[in-house]
């Protein structure tokens, strides 16, 4: 039984064939890293899982994506319900121009929750889970822009956690951060694994090796290899995978 299961995925941007026949499964409470050179389709694949690609004009998708055994591209699926279940953290920290508190509360409010004490409790817990609570508990009413880049990114993680998703997608979450903040985020990912299924896109192979259980290598729209992280980094089956992880191209 898989948490996420994609079968024969093909995706086109106009005439451009961006994903070619992808089959990929992920179990619950694991961290899966998607790696590969720029433009290989790993981010496109990630955005498929919460239907973020729908926002782009001229996009065409074939195949099925099942989350919890339900086809998320089937008719009648409510996209906002899906996105509530599948949280996302973006490449650059992108807090809203609101207070720290309101940033975290945003997802709850737009999903119709107005119970004040419940919101407060969820915000606190999410900030704790994102390992940010100690740093911001005295300035919840301050603008989110006053935080450092690393803090902003953890705030964005807290924001994603607040609506209690079961899956968290991360699109190069540490690429814009300094090494110390990156370490904190990685530590956090490791802790979050207990409660969430995590899919992370990364450019940084050491990062993939450190945080993930399984790794998928993408190359020009194709899934070249998908295996346990240890296997991929120590004993890649495909020549191109080996070339990539040993730094011959990328």
């Amino acid at each position, binding site marked *: 039984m898989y948490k996420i299961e994609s079968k024969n995925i093909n995706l086109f941007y106009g005439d451009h064939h961006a994903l070619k026949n992808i089959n990929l499964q992920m179990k619950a409470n694991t961290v899966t890293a998607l790696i590969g050179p720029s433009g290989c389709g790993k981010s496109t694949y990630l955005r498929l899982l*919460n239907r*973020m690609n729908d*926002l782009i004009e001229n996009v065409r998708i074939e195949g099925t994506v099942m989350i919890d055994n339900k086809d998320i591209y089937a008719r009648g699926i409510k996209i*906002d*319900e899906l*996105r*509530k279940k599948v*949280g*996302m953290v*973006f*490449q*650059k920290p*992108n807090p*809203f*121009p*609101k207070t720290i508190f309101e940033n975290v509360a*945003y*997802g709850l*409010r*737009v*999903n119709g929750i107005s119970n004040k004490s419940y919101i407060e409790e969820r915000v606190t817990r999410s900030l704790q889970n994102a390992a940010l609570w100690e740093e911001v508990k005295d300035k919840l009413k301050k603008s989110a*822009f006053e935080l450092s880049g690393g803090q902003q990114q953890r705030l*964005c993680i807290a*924001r*994603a956690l607040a*609506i209690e998703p079961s899956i968290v997608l991360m699109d190069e979450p540490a690429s814009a951060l300094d090494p110390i903040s990156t370490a904190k985020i990685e530590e956090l990912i490791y802790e979050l694994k207990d409660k969430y299924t995590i899919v992370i896109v990364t450019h940084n192979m050491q990062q993939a090796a450190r945080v993930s259980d399984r790794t998928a290598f993408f190359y020009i729209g194709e899934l070249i290899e998908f295996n346990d992280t240890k296997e991929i980094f120590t004993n890649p089956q495909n020549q191109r995978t080996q070339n990539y992880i040993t730094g011959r191209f990328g």
Partner: protein
Amino acid sequence: MKKIISYIINRIITALLYISGSITSIIVILIVIFLFSEGAGMFGQEPTEKGFILAVNKTNKVSHLSAEQTKLIFDGEITNWQKVGGKNDSIILFRMDNITDYFTEEQIGENFEHLPACISKVVDSIPGIIAFVGKTYTDKNFAGKELKVDKLTVRDFLFGQLWFPTAHPVAVFGALPLLLGTFWVSIFAILFALPLGLATAIYIAEVANPVVRNILKPVIELLAGIPSVVYGFFGLVVVVPFIQSVFNLPVGETAFAGSIILGIMALPTIITISEDAIRTTPRSMKEASLALGANHWQTIFRVILPYSSSGITAGAILGIGRAIGETMAVLMVTGNAAVMPHTLLEPVRTIPATIAAELGEAPQGGLHYESLFILGCVLFLITMLVNLAVEFISRRNKRVAS
């Protein structure tokens, strides 16, 4: 040799470029200098008609009056000296023409040679008199006392409530009704244009599909391109009669008509600037909101609008600026009565309309002419402030965005 020539040409052209680069700054400074130097002369002058004086009986305690008081006295609205700080005695008006009520033509003399003496006698014999007489007829033996009219001050100009620049014997320059009229019309124009403009901007930037967008964009460009005199004409032949019949008014030329036309004219400014602001919202911010389960409208309302609020504010302020400075359309539809505005359904008069309507009749160098240039200065200052405010807001916005 050729090298030297080309070097010289190069230097000359570069110098020309520097000069033309500074030209806007030079023009702005010139505008300030010219408007101000043409207009500033009015302050410190007496608004009494040139060559004339006001005279009263020697026993009268009142030594000076304000321009407004003088006007009200000669209009017959103030009839007792008590009202202006004198004794309880009714005011008796005397103009040059009235001399025949007191003296026969023979007494005055064939060539008016006895006129000064006659005037002197009249002023001396009636305690409550106020006489408006030519300066040449008051000599050393004049038995009356000259009544001073307060000199024009900036304060009276800005806060005076009466605008009668051609009144006799004393012109009154109180620009408050014009200032308020300008704001009155502009604010209602924005109240009506802002919701429409903002909605259209959101629609174009976020909701409309490309086909609709490609129709709306040129429509807005055209709205911006139509000359103001055509808007005024449309207002005059369509909006004004419409308002007159709907509200059953004696005249349709009202502040309301002005606001509607100005609102339509301000729409393109508001729409283009707000749309630009909405478009600058980073894609990542929209995606973050959608990824949290917000739908499109929630994203617009809770993220995009707050993010672009300063740009939208800038658009609204610029729209007000455009409305404040608009001349022809307002001149044609607001009825141009220089009174303090009370309702939207009365005629009002704005500063630009006043300048356009009166400058042609104001003799060059006179007080009236100067006062119109001061109005121009006021208008210039207002729009300058508007521009600086917009500049400030958009600079701050840039900083937040980065």
